[in-house]
């Protein structure tokens, strides 16, 4: 009995030893000792017009640039960062007007081409030719437009909440009342009603909330409204009724769209036929019990989906 047990143990040791080296197996985190969490670096890029863009960078690997929306800041990606930075270089941008980035005055300084160039400057500051770009809300609008302007610099495109611009007009026509908030933001003086505390009202996590209030305290409310004044395709920016439907270059990289179906500002139906605007594979993830801030409402599902989707499309460095 004892002998059998010993024999069993040595067999066990033998077979365990036999499998631990795994020659030829691709590098696995399971075999290596766990690495310490990559440190977060505060960095700055200088955009084409001289605006300084703050971003938080961590990790090594293919570059992933994440762009927040309104009202938000680089801290929006606090939970996504550790889901990626063991294997990717992950960058969370403060878009101009927010937190530690410059806050130039005037509506013209928030026109989409400038917002797009800010992202280009961040990628260049990181010394890269290409990146996977992730955007939410205004960050998604910037990400779509980054794709149209710099398709050759994209590895993958990940969009949260915002329909492709080709379908935005359809949505505005079908449900104009859902955009009333944006038309109110466009009005002169709309920023006078804003406070850092109110803007952070949507943040549930008690640890995150003070960070949001602090970041909004450092941000320009006028800048936040200028995104709508310069770019929202309604009110003063509405295309003429007889304008031909806009056309866009097909998205030439894999596309992942994630949407919270409780979103009342941007409706799920806006993502119908997104795949018709793409030349590579399109994945749409719809989450019924999540709202506009889908990366917070369904953090686990969203971040795991991004990681697994990205790993399956990992760019060669």
């Amino acid at each position, binding site marked *: 009995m004892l002998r059998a047990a010993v024999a069993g143990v040595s067999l066990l040791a033998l077979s*365990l030893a036999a499998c631990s080296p795994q020659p030829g197996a691709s590098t696995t985190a399971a075999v290596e000792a766990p690495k310490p969490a990559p440190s977060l670096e505060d960095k700055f890029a200088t955009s084409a017009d001289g605006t300084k863009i703050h971003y938080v960078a961590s990790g090594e690997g293919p570059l992933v640039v994440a762009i927040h929306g309104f009202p938000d800041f680089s801290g929006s990606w606090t939970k996504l960062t550790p889901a990626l930075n063991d294997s990717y270089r992950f960058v969370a941008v403060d878009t101009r007007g927010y937190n530690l980035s410059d806050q130039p005055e005037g509506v013209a300084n928030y026109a989409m081409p400038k917002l797009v160039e800010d992202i280009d400057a961040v990628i260049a500051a990181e010394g890269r030719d290409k990146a996977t770009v992730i955007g939410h809300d205004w960050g998604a609008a910037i990400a779509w437009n980054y794709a149209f302007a710099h398709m050759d610099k994209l590895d993958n495109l990940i969009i949260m909440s915002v329909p492709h611009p080709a379908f935005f007009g359809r949505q505005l026509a079908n449900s104009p009342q859902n955009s009333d908030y944006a038309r109110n933001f466009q009005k002169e003086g709309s920023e006078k009603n804003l406070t850092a505390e109110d803007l952070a009202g949507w943040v549930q996590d008690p640890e995150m909330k003070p960070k949001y209030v602090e970041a909004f305290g450092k941000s320009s409310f006028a800048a936040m409204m200028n995104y709508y004044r310069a770019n929202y395709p309604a009110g003063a920016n509405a295309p003429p009724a007889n304008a031909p439907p806009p056309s866009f270059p097909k998205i030439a990289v894999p596309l992942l769209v994630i949407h919270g179906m409780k979103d009342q500002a941007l409706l799920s139906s806006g993502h119908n036929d997104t*795949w018709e605007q793409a030349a590579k594979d399109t994945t749409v993830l719809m989450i019924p019990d999540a709202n506009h801030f889908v990366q917070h409402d369904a953090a686990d599902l969203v971040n795991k989906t991004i990681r*697994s989707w990205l*790993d399956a499309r990992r760019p060669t460095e």
Partner: protein
Amino acid sequence: MRIAAGLSLLALLLAGCVTPPSPPDAPAASATARKPVPLEDKYAQNGDIRIHYVASGKGPLVVMIHGYPDFSGSWSLLTPVLNDAYRVVAMDTRGYNLSSQPVGVENYEMPKLVADVAAVIKAEGYEKATVIGHDWGGSISWMFAFTHPEMLDNLIILSTPHPSLFMEQMRTNPAQQASSQYARNFQKEGSEAGMTAEGLARRVQDPELKAKYIEAFNRSSFTAMMNYYRANYPKTVGPGAKRPFVPDNPPPINVPLLVIHGMKDTALLSAGHAGIWEKASKDTSLLMVPDAGHFVQHDKPDLVNNTIRNWLDMHKPGG
């Protein structure tokens, strides 16, 4: 006796170590590097009908249902991607290959096809399964979800739009109406007359697989294949189009849903999947593949099979 016990322990341990938790960035090819899991030919009984299926692996049950013209071998590439961590079952649906081939259109009505799936799950001794279906297998899977939600862990659909969205297409979309003409031809009496196993296997590119398809089709009933259309496909298009057996307002899909579609599919158009998430009460993932046709699992096996594995691991029952 002791030696046997030691050996089986060894085998167990080795089996454990040749299949380490695969790193998330492992390419699909790594699946072929795994030690092959033995395939078992098995049968389930649904009344007088015997359903053949190929089973392998251990873990949460995954039942895969092929379409037309196809057989359990349709999943030969997906099976090894899953069976190191799942109990994987590929059915021959009735009329095909080694399953029974009852005579008469009524024997191919949707409720009977659905009951065959339930019989397979029970034969495996499980109460629930993830169900994967392509083409007619997709239709069976949707209907299984409507009628047996308590037996479903996850639902994975290849190519076939949700019945309500498909009927909307059949009523209003001239392109889909035109694309469905082939099915109305299949419904006609004698449509099976000109069919051959070689003709049905023409789309299969891989010569080794093609031979297996021809062998399976030679064992299959062409009349049965056409009976799927005669019993279940809408008889007309336009505003009055109706689909037998499928409820007008089916209950929402209450498990995670993955839909995969090849955009070059000329029988089932991509537009049929728009708004699919409105038919579901859990998370819906839709993968659209531009350079794949109707047999999306063969046209882009790496992308499709990796997506299924990754998605399933994230939605693993009990995990």
